[in-house]
C-alpha cells in the first residue's frame, strides 16, 4: 500500500486489518493459555478422571481442516481476482466451520449419553468448557464470514483486494491451530 497517499506512518508495513486481527489472536491466545493453565493445575488433584475422547472429534478436526482449505482457496481466488473461485472457497470455508460446530455439539451429546455429565467430575467440566469456548470463537469467525460473503456475493469491488479474505482465512487457520493444541491436550491427559 502506498503510505504517502494517506499520509500515515505504518508499523512494520502491516495494514490496519492485519494489526487488528493479529492483536485479536494474541488476546484469544492468552484466554486459552489461562484455561489450559487451570486445566493442568486441576489435573493434579486426586479426583480427576480423564474423559475418553470421542472419535467423532477426529472427524470434526477434518471438517476444520477442510474449512481452512476452503479459505485458502478463496484467498488464491482473490489474488487472481477470480470471483468464482472466491465464492466457492468462501462457501466451503463457512460451511465446514458450521459443520465443525455442529459436530462438536453432537460429540457432547454422545458423551452425556455415555454418562459423562458436566458436573460429575472436573475433567468432564473442563472438556465441555474448553470445547465450548473454542466453538464460540469459531462462531464469532462465522459472523465475520457472513459480512465478507455478503459483500462478495453483491460483487462489491472493494472485496476484490485479497486483504479481507486473507485475514478471514488467517483467523480460520488460527482457529484450527488452537483446536489442534486443545485436542492434543485432551488426548494426552
Amino acid at each position, binding site marked *: 500500500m502506498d503510505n504517502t497517499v494517506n499520509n500515515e506512518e505504518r508499523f512494520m508495513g502491516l495494514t490496519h486489518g492485519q494489526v487488528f486481527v493479529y*492483536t485479536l489472536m494474541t488476546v484469544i491466545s492468552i484466554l486459552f493459555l489461562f484455561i489450559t493453565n487451570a486445566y493442568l493445575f486441576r489435573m493434579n488433584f486426586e479426583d480427576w478422571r480423564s474423559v475418553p475422547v470421542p472419535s467423532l472429534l477426529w472427524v470434526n478436526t477434518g471438517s476444520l481442516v477442510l474449512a481452512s482449505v476452503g479459505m485458502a482457496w478463496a484467498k488464491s481466488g482473490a489474488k487472481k481476482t477470480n470471483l468464482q473461485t472466491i465464492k466457492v472457497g468462501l462457501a466451503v470455508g463457512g460451511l465446514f466451520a458450521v459443520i465443525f460446530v455442529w459436530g462438536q455439539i453432537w460429540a457432547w451429546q454422545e458423551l452425556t449419553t455415555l454418562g459423562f455429565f458436566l458436573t460429575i467430575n472436573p475433567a468432564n467440566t473442563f472438556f465441555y468448557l474448553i470445547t465450548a469456548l473454542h466453538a464460540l470463537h469459531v462462531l464469532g469467525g462465522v459472523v465475520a464470514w457472513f459480512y465478507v460473503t455478503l459483500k462478495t456475493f453483491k460483487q462489491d469491488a472493494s472485496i476484490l483486494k485479497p486483504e479481507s479474505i486473507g485475514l478471514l482465512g488467517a483467523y480460520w487457520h488460527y482457529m484450527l491451530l488452537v483446536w489442534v493444541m486443545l485436542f492434543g491436550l485432551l488426548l494426552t491427559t
Partner: protein
Amino acid sequence: MEQNAMYEGQPLHHPKGWWGRYVFSQDHKVIALQYICVALAIGLTGMFLSLLMRMQLGFPGLFESISAGNYYQDVTMHGMIMVIYLLTALFLGGFGNYLIPLMLGSRDMAFPFVNMLSFWVYFLSVIILVCSFFVESGPTGAGWTLYPPQSILEGTPGADGAGILLMLGSLAVFIIAFTMGGLNYITTVLQSRAKGMSMMRMPLIIWCLFLATFLGLLAFPALLVGAIMLIFDRVLETSFFMPEIFKGGEVLDYGGGSPVLFQHLFWFFGHPEVYIIALPAFGIISELISCHARKNIFGYNMMVWALIAIAGIAFIVWAHHMYVAGMNPYLGFFFATTTLIIAVPTAIKVYNWVITLWNANIKMTVPMLYCLAFLITFLIGGLTGLFLGNVAVDVPLSDTYFVVGHFHMVMAVSPVLALYGGLVHWYPSVTGRMLDDRLGKIHFWITFVGTYLIYFPMHYIGFLGVPRRYYSNEQYDFIPQSVNDLNQFITVCALIVGAAQFIFLYNLIVSAYRGEEAGSNPWGACTLEWQALESPPGHGNWGDQLPVVYRWPYDYGLPGATADFVPQNVPDEQIT
C-alpha cells in the same frame, strides 16, 4: 471537501440523521463523550454508595436500614463500579477515544464501526450491573475481589440469587467491550500516525494509553476465565474453586477445587488493572505539567522506557496481593522483589515530572494545581505501597485500613486529581469554551485537602490493626473510642468532598453555554489536538489536509523562537 477525504482507501463515515450523528455515531469524539457521560453517571452512583458506607462507619446505627448485608453490598458495588466502570472506562474509553486520533493527526480510529459498538457494549455492561440493584437478592456483597467460596455461598449477600451472576455477566460483557476498544487503540497508534510522527515523537499520554491498552488486552482474559469458572461453580455446581465445605450443619456438594486458584487468576488481571488506571493518569500529568509550566518534559526517552518497564513488570508482581493467602510462602520472596523493583521506574517518572518544574515558567492554572496535588498524593500512595510490597511488613498490615488508605491514595485520589486536571485542560478543545476558573479552584481545594484528610489517617489506624471490611468495630477492645471519633471526622469530610463534586459537575454543564470562548489553543500547547482548524474539531478533524509532524511534542521554551512554544506541525523554516 470532507466527502473526498480518504481513509485506508475507504471514505470517512458520514452520519445520516440524528440517530447516526448523536446516538450511533462513529466519530471518535462523540463516542468519547458518550463514554465520559456514562462513566461519570455510574461513578456518581459509586460515590453515593461510599457515602452510605461512611454513614455506617461514622454514625453507626443512625440509619437502621444499613444492615451488615447492605453495608457489604455497598462496599462491593462501590469498589467494582469505581475501578472498572468509572476509571477504566473514563481513562481509556473517554480520554483514549478523544485524544488518540487527534494527537496522532488522524481523522478517526482505525475501525470506527467497531469503536461505536464498543461503547454500546460498555453501556450494556453498565445496564446489567445496575439490574443487580433491582433483583430480589440485591447486588452481590462479596467484596470487589469476589473471592470464592464465600462469593457464591449463602451468608454473603447476593450469592444465592441473581446478584453475583449479574455482576459476573456484566464483567464478561465489559471485557468484550474493552477488547473491541482496545484493538482499535492498538491499531490506530501503530498504523494511523501522521507523516513525521514516529513512535518516539508521540505525546507521552499516547504511550501511556497504548501501553495501558496492551496491559488490558493481556490481563482481562484472566478475569474472564475466572469469571466463567465461577459462574460454572455457582450455576452448575462444578468445583473449580470450591473445596469440601461444611456449612449449615451439612457437607455441601462441592469438593476438590482450589480457592487460591481464583485468587491467582483474579490478581493476574487485578494488578495490571491498577496500572491500566495509573498509566493514563501519568500521561495526563506529563501533558499538563509541561504545557502549564511552559517547559519541555524532562527525559522523554527515559519516560518511555520507564513506562515500558512498568508495563512489563506489572505482569510479574500479582501475588503481592496473596502473601498470606495460603500460597507457597516462598513465592513471597520472588514477588516482594519484583514489586519493589517496579518502584524504580515509577520513581524515575516522578523525578522527571518534578525536574520538569525546575527552571520552568510555572502558570498556576487549575490544571497545574491538579498536577501538583497529584504529585504529592501519588508520592504518599506510592511510598505506602513499598510497605505493603515488602512481604514481611505486609503481615501485620494486610487487610487493615493501611491497605484501604494506600489503594485509595494511589488509585482514587491521585488518578482522580489527574482526571479532573485533564477534564479542565481539554474542555476547551471539546466545547470551544473555558471552564469557570473560580469554581474550578474552589472544587480543587475542597477535593485535594478533603481527600487527604480522609485517607491519610487511615494508614495509622492500619498500624493499630483495625481490619478492613468491618461493618462495626464495637466488639473489639483493642480498638479505642478515638477510632470511632476519627471515623466520624472522616465521614464528615467525605460528605463535604462528595457535595463539592457537584460544583465541578455544575461547572462542566453551565460553562458549555456560558463559558468564556477559548479560541483554538487557549493554553498554548504543542500537541496536535490543539492545531485543528477549530475547537471543537469538526468531523474528520483536519479538513482537507492531514497534518505533517516535524518535531517532538514538547518544544516549550525552544531557544531561538519568539513564542514560548512551537507546535508539532510547524517546520523549522516557519518558526518565528
